Each structure stands twice: as structure tokens, then as C-alpha cells.
């Protein structure tokens, strides 16, 4: 009744409105899911730009299937949308892209379907261990890895050449390089950092720390272990000596800094090349990739940074079809498309294929960067777990640990504060945390 009243008001306001509704309504079918006559239709929420072409490929091979790919926001925005849709019980997509750190939260909340019985339990060994562990939670498999982010050291070789500084292979050398670079030119920094939860946890991961242990709803949070403290001590030196550019990642200043030599290195996930090529085109030929610096010379430990998988939602009315597309996109022909578009795969077969390893990148001066990145994927330290409410924990990272970057608090104090707030929240939410 209200709606028809509104329609009448709309009509009073002007025919223009109706014309527009008609024209904008025509070009798109909206977000309807499933219930199509044959084959069926799927709604996919993904911000990754490779999903759309893969869906088109799939539809070309399966003409009776319709897939609607919707960019419902990047990362947190989409998680908010997904949580709201799940809470409301309507408008939930069939498939959603979810980063590894956020996956346990959705799995525990019952939002995602366990793919074990749909065929995912046969996929052991298909994916590199880091991502494959990340999509499993409490004995179930809640997604298939779409990409992965084994870490490596990206560096601007022209900066290092200009000042005659060696590429660091250990974290001690890294600090020395940071000091040398900054002393040579006060405008140059080894890297930028204003406090990033994903980076910090990945660094602790590489250092062998295990601050989170999760057993169903029994959770421990402890940043006093060796790995965490090694990282805190190292990074505190860089903060104390003002050796980190106070530029937030992903800002326009960051892209500028990567392009003009202000930011000399990034220790970041293997998905970074695509971002450099498109966002920092002017620095083509200047960047190279080296293995992640080590805590002990000669080691080869790495960690995962970022990366995401595709999951089928529990609310999906067409889970089998959804899984079929998922398999196609992450194990089947979709993988080739993703690699072609600059994505970094999680499938071991592709990571080890000659074609992949021997590809020369013009942007990186012809370097075969996949050799380094692929090796990193194999060297990821095992046993890491994220919290079943990591999205919230990460959201308060800058309230706590981040203060170490702008005030007198130390990183250790910040981590302790983060730990306490994370524990408090968990207990409030009904977990048993200590």
C-alpha cells in the first residue's frame, strides 16, 4: 500500500522519473538469485576483478546457467554487507569472496556451507598448504582458495644501486639498510608503515609466533611468545629511529612514494605485482623481488599475507551448482584466466609449472619473479591460526598497537593492549578466552 502511494507520488513528480526507472531497470536484472528454470542462476559477491571474466567463461560453457557477479564492496565493506544479509535472512549471495583472516568468523557464525561433502575433501594436495589450511575450520572446509599471498621482499633496485646498499637477506641487515638509506637521503625510507594488522600478524607468523590458538570456542590470545616479541623488538627500532615513512598503505601518497623512490621496499604478499604494474606504472623496470628477510641467516621461513578464497553460503539454494562454479574458478579452467590477469594462484600444479615459473616480467626488468614467489609459497610456516572474530580484532588494531606509531607507547605495550581488548571482546561474545 505504501509502495503504491509512493508510485503515485513519483508519478506526480514527473514522467522523467518513470523514464529513468525504465531505462535503468532495463540494463540489468538486479541481484536475484537462484530459482531460474533450467540449470539455475548464481549470485557471486566478489571484488576481485578476475571473477567476472571467469563467470562469463563458465556461462559460455554452460549456457543454462546465469551468474551475476556483484562487487558488494572491498573487504570489510563486503563483510558488513554479508553479515547484514545473513542477519536479515535475505539477499544472501550464493558465493562470496572472503579473505583468509575473516573466514573462521563466517564459518563459525554458520554463514558458510561445509564443502567437504560436495567434493572438497578430495582436494587435499591441490592447493599450497598455507591457503588450504586457511579455508579449513573446525574440521570443515568452508571455501576454496582463489589466490594466495606468500610474502617476499619487493624492492626498488635503483634506490639500492644509487646508494650502493646490498639487498638485505636478514632482518638485522634490513635495519642496517634502513639506517643507511635514510642517512644517505632523509627523504628515503626502507618502507612505509602506519600500523597494519595484516602485516603485523604475518610478520609474527614468519617469526614463528602463535599468538592465537583456537579450539572451537576455546581461544587463547598471547602476544608474549618469542615470535611476537622478536617482531616487536625489531620494528620498535625502526619506529624509534624514524626509519618508517609515515604513509598509510594504499593512499595516493603511497603510490607516489612507490613510484618516486621514497619507499624503497615492501615486504608483502605475492599478489603485489599486479598492483605495482597498474598503480605505479611510471616505475616500470625499477622493481625486483627477493626472498623475505630471515630471522636467522640461511633460513627460509615465510608467511602468508592477505589472499582470499571463494565460499558457498549456507543460505544458497543451489549449493551443488555453486560448488561446481567454485571448483571451475579455483581448480579448473578459471585458474589460467586468473594467472593471465596477473593473479597469484594457490594451486600447486600451477605454482610448479614451467610456464609459470619461467615467465619473465618486463615491469621487473625481465626477472622471473614467480621463482621467488613460488618458493615462498612452499616455505610458509605451518600451524598459524586466526581468531574466530579476527575482523573485529583487526578493526581495533590501530586503536591499540597503532598508538605506538604516533605516541610514546611501545609496540609491546600496544600488543598487550590489543591482546587485552581482544580477550575482553571474546569473552563478551561468549567465547572462553584467556
Amino acid at each position, binding site marked *: 500500500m505504501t509502495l503504491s502511494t509512493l508510485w503515485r507520488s513519483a508519478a506526480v513528480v514527473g514522467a522523467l522519473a518513470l523514464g529513468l526507472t525504465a531505462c535503468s531497470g532495463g540494463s540489468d536484472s538486479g541481484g536475484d538469485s537462484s530459482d531460474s528454470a533450467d540449470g539455475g542462476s548464481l549470485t557471486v559477491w566478489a571484488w576481485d576483478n578476475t571473477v567476472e571474466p571467469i563467470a562469463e567463461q563458465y556461462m559460455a560453457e554452460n549456457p543454462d546457467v546465469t551468474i551475476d557477479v556483484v562487487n558488494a564492496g572491498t573487504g570489510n565493506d563486503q563483510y558488513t554487507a554479508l553479515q547484514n544479509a545473513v542477519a536479515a535472512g535475505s539477499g544472501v549471495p550464493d558465493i562470496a569472496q572472503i579473505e583468509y583472516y575473516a573466514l573462521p568468523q563466517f564459518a563459525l557464525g554458520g554463514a558458510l556451507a561445509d564443502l567437504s561433502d560436495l567434493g572438497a575433501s578430495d582436494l587435499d594436495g591441490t592447493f599450497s598448504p598455507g591457503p588450504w589450511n586457511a579455508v579449513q575450520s573446525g574440521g570443515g572446509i568452508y571455501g576454496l582458495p582463489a589466490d594466495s599471498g606468500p610474502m617476499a621482499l619487493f624492492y626498488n633496485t635503483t634506490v639500492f644501486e644509487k646508494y650502493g646498499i646490498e639487498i638485505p637477506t636478514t632482518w638485522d641487515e634490513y635495519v642496517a639498510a634502513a639506517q643507511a638509506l635514510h642517512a644517505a637521503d632523509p627523504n628515503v625510507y626502507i618502507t612505509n608503515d602506519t600500523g597494519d594488522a595484516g602485516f603485523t600478524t604475518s610478520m609474527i607468523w614468519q617469526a614463528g609466533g602463535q599468538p592465537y590458538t583456537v579450539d572451537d570456542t576455546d581461544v587463547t590470545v598471547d602476544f608474549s611468545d618469542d615470535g611476537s616479541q622478536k617482531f616487536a623488538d625489531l620494528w620498535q627500532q625502526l619506529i624509534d629511529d624514524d626509519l618508517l615513512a609515515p*604513509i598509510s598503505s*594504499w593512499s595516493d601518497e603511497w603510490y607516489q612514494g612507490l613510484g618516486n623512490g621514497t619507499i624503497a621496499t615492501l615486504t608483502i604478499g605475492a599478489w603485489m605485482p599486479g598492483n605495482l604494474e597498474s598503480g605505479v606504472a611510471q616505475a616500470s623496470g625499477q622493481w625486483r623481488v627477493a626472498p623475505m628477510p630471515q630471522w636467522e641467516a640461511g633460513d627460509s621461513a615465510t608467511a602468508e599475507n592477505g589472499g582470499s578464497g571463494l565460499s558457498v553460503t549456507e543460505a544458497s539454494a543451489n549449493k551443488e551448482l555453486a560448488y561446481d562454479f567454485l571448483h571451475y574458478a579455483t581448480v579448473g579452467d578459471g585458474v589460467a584466466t586468473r594467472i593471465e590477469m596477473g593473479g597469484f594462484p594457490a594451486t600447486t600444479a600451477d605454482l610448479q609449472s614451467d610456464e609459470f615459473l619461467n615467465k619473465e616480467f618486463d615491469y621487473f626488468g625481465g626477472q622471473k619473479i614467480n621463482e621467488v614467489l613460488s618458493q615462498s609459497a612452499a616455505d610458509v610456516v605451518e600451524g598459524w591460526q586466526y581468531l574466530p572474530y579476527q575482523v573485529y580484532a583487526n578493526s581495533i588494531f590501530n586503536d591499540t598497537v*597503532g598508538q605506538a606509531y604516533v605516541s610514546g607507547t611501545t609496540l609491546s605495550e600496544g600488543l598487550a593492549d590489543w591482546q587485552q581488548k581482544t580477550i575482553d571482546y571474546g569473552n563478551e561474545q561468549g567465547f572462553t578466552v584467556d
Partner: protein
Amino acid sequence: MVTSSFRDLWIPAVLLTPFGGLWQRDAAPDVDVNICPEGVAHVTQTVPSALADPAVAASTRPGPRRRGVARRWTGWGFVGPFMIVFALVFLAPIAYSIYLSLFRQQLVGGNAFVGLENYSRALSDPQLWSAAGRVSLFLVVQVPIMLGIALLVALAIDSGRLYGSGFFRISIFLPYAVPAVVATLMWGFMYGTRFGLIGNINDAFGISLPNPLSPDLVLASIGNIVTWEFVGYNMLIFYSALRVIPHSLYEAAEIDGAGQWRIISAIKLPAIRGALVIATIFSIIGSFQLFNEPSILQSLAPNAITTSFTPNLYAYSLGFSGQQYNYSATVAIIMGLLTMVIAYVVQLRGMRKEA
């Protein structure tokens, strides 16, 4: 007279609140100048205060006999459509929020009725009160500066002593047309100390301006964005109020030998008191509901703008990142009540001075 005008102004003041702030433009937009003649009436005592109750115009006239039962409900025919939609988009969600604020939903363990527990938690929540303190500071510093500039410019343009006053009027007003999202993105680019405008100035003059997005300065930087957005808007409100002051008053004053400053303090300012009070109340509500600007700047200054930087930001992150819908609703209701009380007190004081 004082009581009556107080009551009249209180109602409009809150009525004008822009839709809970965030859904539409959020700082201090929808101010109305209809109150100005009230001020004029007080000064001149020549114009009857017909606006005292708009309904009076209708109600004081005896209606014809036909005004029977049917006629009594005719008004609803006109007000009804507004109220139906209003109930849907305001009353129902508020009622739902109050309901939510009495429960607690956990990720593990489900939903439980907790009575007023959320309220007692909020009253002793240091994060909430430090956020409230921050917006209060913002209010005390930014609002007087913004309204002061707006008033001075309005007086300057109204004085007729400017070259090209029409150009001034429209140009200073233009920023109001810029959506808060765009304004914040724009200032965010400019605030960059390395490659932004601040960085350019540092390079050009060989100086080192402090980082506008550092924790010490970020509140001031947000204040600057809000001031930029709304100075012209408030200026136009004051200017419109000034324009309706009867010309004869100035002539009389000039005959009595009063100078410009005397005319401003004795005639103009009292005459636009109503507009000043309304603009102040709006700015209070805008300050307490501060959200868009800090929320968008957060990606550039993550450590300086915490998740509990303003009460509204706090309610947002509780509800969305933390999935604490119940507590988030509680925080919002408390802030709503607080805003009403403060606006009410300002209203009271603003009008009392006039007496």
C-alpha cells in the same frame, strides 16, 4: 512573550534536524530563517508575531458551521502521507533500537534479555565518554569560529560596502554544494605532507608545516573541513535574516547619529538573534553526530582517528565491525538524548538573554 517565543523556537529547532544527520547531509544544513521576523518583532514591536503558532491563524478564526466531525479529520488527509512514511523510516527503527538495547546477542550463546545492563555499561564506558568529550571540544572551538566567520561575512556583504558583493555571496556559498564525501576526499588529498598541498607548500617555502593528520591536529583538520563546508551556508542564513530588517530602522538610527558599529550591535544583531540561535543549535547537533569526515579520513590517519573517535563512529564500529548491535543501539539512544538536552539548554539560554 519570552515563554511563547521560546516554545516556538524549540519546536522548529529540532524539527529542522536533518534527518538524523547522516542519512542526508550531516552537519548543520537545514536552517530556517522564518524565525528572523520574531527577532524583528522583538526589536521593533511593530509587527504582530503571527508566526508564534502557525496554527493560530486557522484556529482563532471561528469556522463555519460545516466544521463537523468530517472536517475535524480533514487535516489528517494532508498530514497522513507524511506521517505514514515518517513512521516507517523513523519511528519503527527507533522503536526497534530501543527494543534491541534491552537485549544482548552473542556470537556464541545466542540472544538474551538483559534489561538496562547495556545502559549501565554505556554510562561507565570510558571510550564513549572520551568520544563525547572530543566532540564537545570540537563544538566549543569549531562552532564559534565557523559561525563567527559566517556572521562577519554576512554583515560585510549586507553593509553594501563591498565591491562585487553578489560574487562574494554565491562564491562563499558554493562549498555547500560539495558532498561531504567529495569534500573529505579532496581535503584528504590536500592534507598530504609529502605530495599534497601541504607538501607543496613545504617544498616551495622550505618550511616544515606539521602533519595535519597527526593525532594532535586531526581534530582541527576535521574542523577545517566542516567549517569550509558550512561557513557559506550559515553566512547565507544570516544574510537572509539581515535583509529583512526594515530599512526604516537604519534611517532612524542614522538620524540619531549612530555609527555603523552601533547599528550592528543595537539593531542588526538583536534582529537576527533567532537565526543565530537556530544556527547554533544545528551546529551542536552536527557536532554531536560528526561521522562522515572522520570516517573517510580514517584510512589516511588510522592511528589518529580511532574507532571511538566520535560517539557516532563508535556506534558504527560497534554495530558493524563488532556485531554488537544491541550496545550500538544503546549508545545511539544515549547520544540522542544528550543532544536533545544540550540543544534545549542552549535554546533556553539563547532566548533568556533576549528578555
